[in-house]
């Protein structure tokens, strides 16, 4: 009878992490998107076990978490998954990243880049921005979230101090999306515009609007936003 060698065990655990990300299961008490899975280890327990077994953190992230989220992204695109399903998966990835974070540096894992996110001045809507934030973290970016109703000057100050590679601006209303333009103008006036790629998102905005205000990109949804950042 064959015994499971260590590499095979690693693949098994990573495969389980991937499957549990797809099921949106953070911990073992979670029943999963399809239901009936309570009691089985979730992403948290599996990630802890993988670390204890000495599995490479890069493999846990790339082959487990990221591949799992890629499947979720495809299901979301095909309308097989809906926003809450995608959130559950992003939650699971976020929980795993919380455990993995202290191990990232010594494993030689580098963040893909730093992103500052903000809902622009006058707008209080946060859910869309928070979804993007979770997906970016899960995809390996460092995210600094400035919150909502953020003045252009506060965004300029944050870009100057934190030197992110990317700036994501969100707005839900036609009456507040104009403040994205003001923010980009404020960056230009401060001489910081060419230091950061600006990507915008939110219900009323479009690729055309992004171009018209001088943004570098437009994210139609959270997964698309990750793709756009990756393409930079």
């Amino acid at each position, binding site marked *: 009878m064959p015994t499971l060698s260590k590499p095979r065990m690693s693949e098994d655990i990573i495969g389980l992490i991937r499957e549990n990300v797809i099921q*949106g299961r953070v911990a073992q008490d*979670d*029943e*999963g*998107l*399809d*239901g*009936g899975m309570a009691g089985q280890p979730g992403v948290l327990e599996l990630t802890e076990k993988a670390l204890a077994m000495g599995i490479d953190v890069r493999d846990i992230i790339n082959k487990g978490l990221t591949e799992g989220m890629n499947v979720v992204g495809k299901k979301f695109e095909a*309308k097989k998954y*809906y*926003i*809450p*399903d995608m*959130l*559950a998966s*992003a*939650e699971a990835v*976020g*929980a795993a990243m919380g455990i993995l974070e202290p191990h990232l540096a010594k494993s030689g894992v580098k963040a893909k880049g730093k992103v500052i996110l903000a809902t622009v*001045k*006058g*707008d*209080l*809507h*946060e*859910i869309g921005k*928070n*979804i993007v934030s*979770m997906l970016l973290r899960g995809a390996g970016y460092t995210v600094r979230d400035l919150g909502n*109703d953020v003045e252009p000057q506060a965004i300029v100050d944050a870009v100057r101090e934190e030197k992110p590679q990317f700036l994501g601006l969100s707005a839900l*209303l*036609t*009456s*507040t999306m104009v*403040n994205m333009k003001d923010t980009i103008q404020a960056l230009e006036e401060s001489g910081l515009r060419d230091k950061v790629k600006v990507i915008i998102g939110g219900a009323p905005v479009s690729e055309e609007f992004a171009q018209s205000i001088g943004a570098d990109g437009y994210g139609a949804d959270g997964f698309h936003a990750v793709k756009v950042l990756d393409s930079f």
Partner: protein
Amino acid sequence: MSSPGIRNEFDIDKQQVLNHMGYGAGGAPSARVESLVKEYADNICHLIEPSYSYVIRGIDSVRGSRVFIEGSVTFRSNIIAQLLEQCQKVAVFVVTIGGRLEEVVRQLAKDGLMVQAAVLDAIGSDAAETLAHVVQDIVGKEAEAEGLGISLRFSPGYCDWRVSQQKMVFRAMGGDTAGVRLTDGCLMVPQKSISGIIGIGPRGEVEGYNPCPTCKKRDCIGRR
């Protein structure tokens, strides 16, 4: 007219809540989402502080896309002008479920519990819709007593009626806005609030006014 003392035992329409989250026809929620919707919908009362206010104003005149309402209020929208051209009066209203629910949503999101936050947020949206229906029913009964009918509800942001026209809706309310305030960007605070108008006019005419069937924006989430 303001009535903050209404009962807050809301019958949350669970299918509507799922619709708010994007599950349309054929989209089945997971077991987890379904059980969360049920659990939250059945235990939401303590998070809802319902309040509403409405006024009924006369329509002075309609010229092009402008509607002149008594009290120095002007609505600008082709769609609203076409509606109110058929009406004698207009009910202007604001409803809110208060700020408690959105505080909890914010805290859940902060704690990384995004599924719970999304479900509770959708339930809050449905509760606000339910409250707007309550006002619509009251206005409908008042109109009926005068032998008149009422139109569908319209809010700034619908069709070609700009969100910035919230200022006019709030001006029409004459100071009693059910505790809801407008930000400079014309956002209502608390956010789970609905403002808008209901046309009051000849029975058998105003009820049927619906610009959606001839509208080209087929993917509009507000399509009726």
